[in-house]
């Protein structure tokens, strides 16, 4: 009862509502990731009560992860990397005149995925954290290999170009300082010594390039069609028909979130891929399949709770956002590690309840805002395309307050346009860029620990991940051949 009595405070509710709303706006803007939103508000929470401060940070996190889905669905420009997979089916569904259905699916799936991970966090955090601790360099290397095998599934029908795109991403990941020796590699400009930043690449490949592609269309986003805005009620029916997909994606997102370093994008992409693998209507994916939106959004919001598991139980941040969250916990004078769950229950449990409530607030805002968000589709493209480019520029600039990131973003924007024109996969490139440094660093560390021997692959988790990777590739090849045979009949 004492955990709940804290919520009989108007001030706390106002804080939650404002933080979720601000998070949605931040998440929708390209370049402004949840990490930026949480980071900006950490100093603001100094002086607040611990529960209020943490709930505000949690609200921003939850809102921002969903907010990226709005622009992903309406404009094919993901607000942040975790929403890339949402563009695959969200945007086609919106272009078919059902933006409300797509936004509704994203909101509901995000809520359920997020609530699932918060529940896991509440009930199973300590034992799950012990599993996360068993991930060393060897295990991270096999996780990266598994992530790269997802590219095979994604590239069905254009496998060679998908693989080449991923290798381009791996090469881009080599740019910068070598992770072990610090030797600079391909750092032709001083700003490249730190490597190629992920966010300008994502903004360029997905947002700026979309602005360029829209210039070729130059009409209303949905010309002459009625927007079936109220079809968000159809979204509830879609969710009811996809319970297994929803559960599976929530589990995937939670597990990916628990593993430090894996990230929102990886959780969403893996869940999307598995959803397509097990779907009976594979041909609909990429053309507005509700399952794809459900999988992506449930998983990326499930990463939220998952990423807080190692943070709250062990003081080990699960991703960039939870690392900033750590700052929020320290500012409140709270200890880091298992003591949070034992001596500070009156802070942690209300925070987790508040995180759950933030998801309901996010759902209410998302459903209430559907009509307003969908109106953007009636705007002429001659206004939308330049605006997307301007937001891409400012989003890239805010990363390091440096115009170099803007030029990098524009380079990737033109590259993204050319890749789409010639049939290469921008998603595979991003996956290579994310997973390449992780694979290289962990491989080098594992080889140092094992003194050059490949015996580091003998651990249980490594064998499991390698088996999953082999199964992933095998199943993809099997389904591709099966599809080809069925088509030829």
């Amino acid at each position, binding site marked *: 009862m004492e955990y709940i009595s804290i919520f009989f405070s108007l001030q706390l509710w106002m804080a939650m509502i404002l933080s979720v709303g601000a998070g949605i706006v931040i998440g929708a803007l390209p370049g402004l990731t949840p990490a930026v939103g949480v980071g900006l508000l950490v100093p603001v929470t100094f002086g607040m009560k611990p529960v209020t401060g943490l709930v505000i940070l949690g609200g921003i996190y939850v809102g921002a992860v969903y907010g990226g889905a709005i622009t992903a669905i309406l404009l094919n420009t993901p607000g942040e990397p975790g929403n890339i997979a949402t563009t695959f089916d969200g945007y086609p569904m919106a272009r078919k005149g059902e933006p409300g259905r797509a936004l509704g699916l994203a909101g509901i799936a995000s809520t359920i995925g997020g609530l699932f991970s918060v529940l896991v966090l509440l009930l199973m955090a300590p034992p799950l954290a012990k599993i996360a601790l068993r991930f060393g360099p060897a295990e991270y290397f096999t996780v990266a290999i598994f992530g790269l095998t997802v590219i095979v599934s994604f590239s069905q029908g254009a496998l*060679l170009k998908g693989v080449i795109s991923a290798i381009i991403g791996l090469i881009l990941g080599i740019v910068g300082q070598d992770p072990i020796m610090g030797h600079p590699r391909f750092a032709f400009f001083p700003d490249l010594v730190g490597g190629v930043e992920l966010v300008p690449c994502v903004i360029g490949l997905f947002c700026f390039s979309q602005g360029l592609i829209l210039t070729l269309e130059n009409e209303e986003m949905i010309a002459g069609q009625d927007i079936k805005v109220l079809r968000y009620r159809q979204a509830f029916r879609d969710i009811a028909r996809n319970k297994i997909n929803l559960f599976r994606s929530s589990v995937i997102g939670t597990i990916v979130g628990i593993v430090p370093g894996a990230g929102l994008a990886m959780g969403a992409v893996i869940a999307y891929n598995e959803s397509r693998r097990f779907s009976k209507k594979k041909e609909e994916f990429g053309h507005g399949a509700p399952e794809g939106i459900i999988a992506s959004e449930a998983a990326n919001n499930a990463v939220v709770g998952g990423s807080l598991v190692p943070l709250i139980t062990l003081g080990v941040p699960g991703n960039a956002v939870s690392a900033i969250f750590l700052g929020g916990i320290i500012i409140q004078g709270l200890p880091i590690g298992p003591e949070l769950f034992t001596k500070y229950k009156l802070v942690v449990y209300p925070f987790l309840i508040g995180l759950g409530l933030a998801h309901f607030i996010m759902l209410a805002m998302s459903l209430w805002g559907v009509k307003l968000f969908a109106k953007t589709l009636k705007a002429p493209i001659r206004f939308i395309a330049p605006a997307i480019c301007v937001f891409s520029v400012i989003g890239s600039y805010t990363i390091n307050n440096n115009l170099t990131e803007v030029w990098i973003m524009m380079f990737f924007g033109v590259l993204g346009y050319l890749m789409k024109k010639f049939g290469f996969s921008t998603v595979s490139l991003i996956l290579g860029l994310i997973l390449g440094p992780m694979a290289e660093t962990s491989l080098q560390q594992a*080889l140092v620990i094992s003194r050059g021997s490949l015996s580091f692959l003998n651990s249980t988790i490594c064998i499991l991940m390698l088996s999953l990777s082999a199964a992933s590739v095998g199943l993809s090849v099997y389904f591709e051949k099966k599809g080809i045979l069925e088509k030829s009949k």
Partner: protein
Amino acid sequence: MSANKSDAVIGGLLVLLGFFVLIAARTFPPRTQLYVNLVSLAMIISSAILLAKALYAQWQLKGEKGNTLSPDKPVIWWFVLANMGFVGAIYLVGFHLAAFLFLVGGTLLLGQKKLFTAFIVSGCVVGCLYVIFVLFLKVPLPKGALFG
């Protein structure tokens, strides 16, 4: 340009990229060469396969045209140039003025006929950017050499 020809050109360029990375890796410390060598070899092999497939497909067509890629409309490259001009102008006049000029110019380039509407919409977008980024997020946007 036909799809096969473009694949052949891209395949050839990527093979060269693979060799460039492979040769450059020889200057890296020995411990770090393994991963880079693996990646560059993967690039060389996969892009060589792409090149070979494209050349073979082109040879099989024997003078027929095959699939051709639709040519780009010039507007897209003018738009890219306009974007580059926008970023270049930021150094001189700062973000807000450069964004306003780009938005007006960009909408006119894409077919907007009424200048007054372009001005109003562009002003509103820049205003929103100011409120969100400067007032709310407190991001210090560049003011440019003229106004800085």
